[in-house]
């Protein structure tokens, strides 16, 4: 591998936390393996560009496109493919949140693709990437002998060595502006977008407060939201209460919901079915609150409080 490029998704105003993390990840890979370091984004704002330059000396390439096409991964993959080919870039790192852009780019680049890795090493021209498989029950390391690779990475879990030395001074390289010169007609049209009024996205959250059957009634969920608000946390749910239609599927954590890895996962009234554990067992710390002292969740918890969540949570809120 000679050159690494990292894709940064535009967020208008400020750089998202996961974007900062991915820049640090690419700095660490570039530094450990002596690779040329590039960052690419589309319509990145002045503010985002200066934030990137505070933490990275990578060459920045800012793609200029019609803002209506910003969410079009087919278009972006065509442009980034051109950029990679023109600059002999052979390693691409993309956040696992952009899981459609990455395989499209891999196909066009004729590169191998692996999703959701949390570790990457290069030894003797071979790459070794590591990811969780089987819903988090096993960990697989792959050996890759391809000349080009595209990976999506899980920012919160990625193993970085020497983290303190990875924030780099900018080289003040001039930013390259790149405008595609080909015609593009999208095959998929976005008709409308409905936003849910959610403050914190569960996949990016540092803390998640999750509710299970132990809340007993839909109305008792208020106490979960209250604790989440107090902690600036996102709200999660077990399959049982999603299937009851008490909470939307977008909150479901587990095998048929989201796989999350926050710093702290608070499981409230969740017994700990294997399908739920599959979605949260990679959390850094787990606090379980459950009235059943034999609930399996306690075997997977760092901290546990045996008690009814309706009396325990108010005590927590009061003390916080």
């Amino acid at each position, binding site marked *: 591998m000679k050159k690494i490029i990292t894709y940064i998704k535009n967020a208008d105003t400020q750089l998202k936390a996961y974007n900062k993390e991915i820049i640090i990840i690419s700095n660490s890979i570039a530094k450990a393996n002596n690779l040329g370091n590039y960052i690419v984004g589309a319509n990145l704002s002045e503010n985002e560009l200066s934030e990137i330059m505070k933490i990275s000396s990578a060459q920045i390439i800012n793609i200029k496109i019609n803002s209506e096409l910003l969410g079009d991964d087919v278009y972006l993959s065509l442009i980034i493919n051109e950029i990679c080919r023109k600059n002999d870039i052979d390693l691409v790192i993309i956040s696992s949140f952009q899981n459609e852009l990455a395989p499209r780019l891999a196909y066009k680049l004729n590169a191998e693709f692996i999703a959701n890795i949390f570790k990457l090493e290069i030894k003797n021209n071979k790459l070794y990437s590591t990811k969780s498989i089987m819903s988090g029950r096993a960990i697989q390391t792959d050996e890759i002998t391809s000349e080009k690779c595209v990976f999506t990475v899980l920012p919160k879990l990625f193993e970085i060595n020497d983290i303190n030395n990875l924030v780099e001074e900018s080289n003040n390289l001039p930013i390259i502006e790149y405008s595609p010169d080909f015609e593009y007609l999208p095959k998929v049209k976005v008709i409308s*977008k409905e936003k849910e009024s959610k403050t914190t996205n569960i996949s990016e959250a540092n803390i998640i407060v999750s509710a299970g059957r132990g809340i007993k009634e839909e109305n008792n969920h208020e106490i979960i939201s209250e604790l989440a608000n107090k902690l600036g946390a996102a709200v999660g749910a077990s399959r049982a209460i999603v299937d009851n239609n008490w909470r939307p599927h977008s909150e479901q954590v587990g095998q048929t919901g989201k796989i999350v890895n926050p710093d702290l996962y608070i499981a409230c009234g969740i017994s700990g079915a294997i399908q739920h554990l599959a979605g949260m067992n990679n959390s850094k710390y787990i606090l379980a609150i459950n009235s059943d002292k034999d609930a399996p969740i306690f075997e997977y918890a760092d901290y546990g*409080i045996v008690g009814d969540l309706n009396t325990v949570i108010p*005590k927590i809120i009061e003390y916080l």
Partner: protein
Amino acid sequence: MNILVCLSRVPDTNSKLVISDDNKSINKSTKYVMNPYDEYALEEALQIRTKYGGIITAITVGNEVSEDILRSAYALGVEKAVIIKSENNLNSSFQVASAIALFAETQSFDLILCGNQSIDYSSESIPIFLSEILNVPALTSAMKIEINDSLVTVDKEINDGTIKMETSLPCIISVQKGINQPRYPKLPDIMKSKKKPISDFQAHIKNSKINAFELKINKKERIGKIVGDSKEEIIEIIELLKTEAKVL
């Protein structure tokens, strides 16, 4: 409407996961089931057929042992079932998608349905690779599908809401949990499914440059401090979260 539904066979979460002695693969004794997300894709195919007519072909990429999930698809009412086989090991999602695409190219499908992800490798990339290889649009994480003539509208679940998207047939759609309620097969249909023909399709796929190097069980060590619900004990836990775990 000619519908292709892609089914994946995955280790059953409820059975113990055993790693083979080579530390590279899963022990063959592991119990396998149809990928839960694919049950929604299959149900959606059945509902679309009811509304718009057509036939459904169910496929899986694998070998003889994969027959069981195709029998389940027969029991629910698909018209055809095919096992796509490859002489090479398929180590990447791109190879699996390439094998499906080779079969799809021999037919003229209007709609290819998949589950949003498989619970074994969870890369969510099969529909995207199919879209690239076959050069047809893909819509992912569908919570609702509507078809009017050749116009397809999909409500897609995103992290902070939903997007309504539109494209035209032929296309690929991956479906999210919650789009429907999968039905159960009836006993006579299960019996009949045992006699239905399952055909083979041989796909010639290039070897991947990805090879499994090491596989191990994920066992995270936990602190395991469990207390009662007195005020003092709760305060102790909150303090530990602040000072020991440093997450508050």
